[in-house]
Every structure is written in C-alpha cells, then in structure tokens.
C-alpha cells in the first residue's frame, strides 16, 4: 500500500496506547454499539442521521484504555470529477483525545482495510478514498498537499472552501 516515492515526509510514529479495531462490513455489534454510544454522548452526528445507520458505515474505531475515542466511517459514492467510485471518508474524535493521535492512528489502517476490501470485491470498482476537509480543524496539517499517512492528496476545493482530498488505490485501473 505504501508508496514511499510519493512523499518524502516521514510517517508519524505510531500513537502509543491506541488500539485500532477494524469494522468495515464486519457487523461487529460491540464496536457498532460503542460507536453509537460515542456519537450520542458527543452529539456529533448531523440532524437526521441515525447512529444505527452510521454504524453500518464504520471502517475502524480507535480505542484508548478500552474506550472508543475516534471513528472512521465511509459511504461509497460515484465522484463525477474523477469518474470513479470512491469511499467518502468521515471521521470523529472525542475532543478530549484530539491531540492523542487517535484520528491519525486510524488513517493508515482505514486505507488498508478499504483497499483490501476493494481488491477482494472487484465488482464494486472502488477506486480509492476521498475526504472533504475543514482546513480550520486541521491547522498546519491542511497546508500539506499530500498527507503522508493516508496519501490523501489535495485535488480541489469545494465552494464553501473545504479541501477535496483523494487517494487512489494502487491496484485500481480504468476499464
């Protein structure tokens, strides 16, 4: 998965004490319930989004001392400007753990999980991951055109100013 030639920036060291649990299409009731409790406790889901539905979109969850502190989720959608199907990535982190590296710890495993799944399900034609990034939330990190951990690369801006970042899976080819 790693393309060392793509960026000269070294990857961040593993976040200590963070355990990442894969969840993509596993229907793991324990992780799903932890995620539902997490979203309800922090009240971070947009209006109209049911936690039970969002739980089916879990890619992975990060735990610290047995407590869920960060989640990565995705929906698969066709992206017009790239003419391919992408995993639209979302994330949420407990504010108490914003600087713990929990969200960063999810970046590489999330990509690996989705890429392996895409390879195992070629009929899905999943080409990569895409994220819509609030620059204010990411600070100096948002100034990096290529994020070394996830390889998410700046490919444009939304009208509201959010960055559009995408990473193609290595195995993907257009028909």
């Amino acid at each position, binding site marked *: 998965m790693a*393309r060392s030639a793509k960026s000269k*920036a070294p990857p961040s060291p593993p976040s200590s004490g963070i355990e990442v649990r894969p969840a993509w299409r596993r229907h793991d009731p324990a992780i799903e319930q932890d995620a539902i409790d997490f979203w309800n406790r922090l009240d971070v889901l947009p209006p109209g989004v049911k936690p039970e539905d969002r739980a089916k979109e879990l890619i992975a969850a990060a735990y610290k001392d047995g407590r869920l502190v960060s989640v990565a989720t995705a929906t698969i959608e066709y992206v017009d400007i790239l003419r*391919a199907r992408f995993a639209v990535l979302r994330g949420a982190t407990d504010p108490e753990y914003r600087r713990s590296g929990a969200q960063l710890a999810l970046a590489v495993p999330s990509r690996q999980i989705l890429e392996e799944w895409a390879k195992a399900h070629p009929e899905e034609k999943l080409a990569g991951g895409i994220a819509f990034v609030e620059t204010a939330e990411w600070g100096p990190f948002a*100034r990096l055109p290529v994020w070394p951990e996830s390889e998410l*690369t700046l490919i444009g801006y939304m009208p509201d100013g959010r960055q559009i970042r995408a990473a193609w899976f290595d195995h993907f080819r257009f028909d």
Partner: protein
Amino acid sequence: MPPAEDLEIRPGWRAGDAQLEADAIAFWQRLGLLPAHVDPQARAKEIVLGAYREGRLVGVMTAIVGPLDFLRARFAFLRTAVDPELRRGHAAATMAYHARELLERWSVEHPEEKLAGLGAALESRQLQDIAKEPYWPGTRLMLARFLPDGRQVRVSWFSHYRVD
C-alpha cells in the same frame, strides 16, 4: 519502467544554454514539430532539459508555468518531443523523471515563484493505455480530475510546497 540509460540528460531550465537552445531549434525544425505560429526562439526559452544520445539531441522537454485555478496554485506544464526512432526506448519517461527533479529543485531555490508542482492535461492517444493507471510512480503524476471534454488533468505536488 527502467530509465533509458543511453541518454545523457542536459538541464536547461532558465539556464540560457545557447548550445542546447540551438540544438533544440534544429531538432524541432528537422522533425517539423512546432506549429507555424510558434516562435522557435521563444519556445527554446521554455526548455527544461534536452536528452542526447551519442552527442545528438533526441528529445526535448519544455514547460510553461501557469495557474491551475481549481487547485489555487501554480504548476509547470510539460511538453515532450522525442525523436520517433526512440519512442520505444522509454526516453519520454526518463526525461519526465529528470524534469521533475530539476523543477522541484528550482522551486525550492526560488520560493518567490510559488511553483507547486507539475501538471499535465493528457491529450495524446499514445497515452491511452497508461491513462488507465490513475497514479504514475515515476513522475508522481496523479489524476486530479477529468475535464468536460474527457481529458485527464494530472498533478504532482512538490514535497516542500505548502498550501497558503
């Protein structure tokens, strides 16, 4: 793709290399590569590098620097001309690899230019096969979007560059 080891790469970007420029003009004229409205002298000022084999110029890479509005940054757009005899020799890939290194180094040395990376809009039918691959490791050109007419826009950000 392995580099074409029989090529000697001669850097030319903003170097004012009169010999390289003269060789390039003769090369373009010999092969009839430049459209009638293009001034060879002006095009020669855009040379990034030349590729020589056995002392003879067999490939020229030029670039123009301009904004990519959807990325809010300035990129160098490469043009490549290779002697038809060499097209099977990976010459273009070798030249693109060296061009990236050269332009990135120049960008680091000239931060006032705010050159963010390389850009390319794929037009050639010869690229149809490799266009299926959304990321090219050699030049690190990544498919960033399709234009309405179907052309691919590819970009490769320089590692040192930071978004404003």
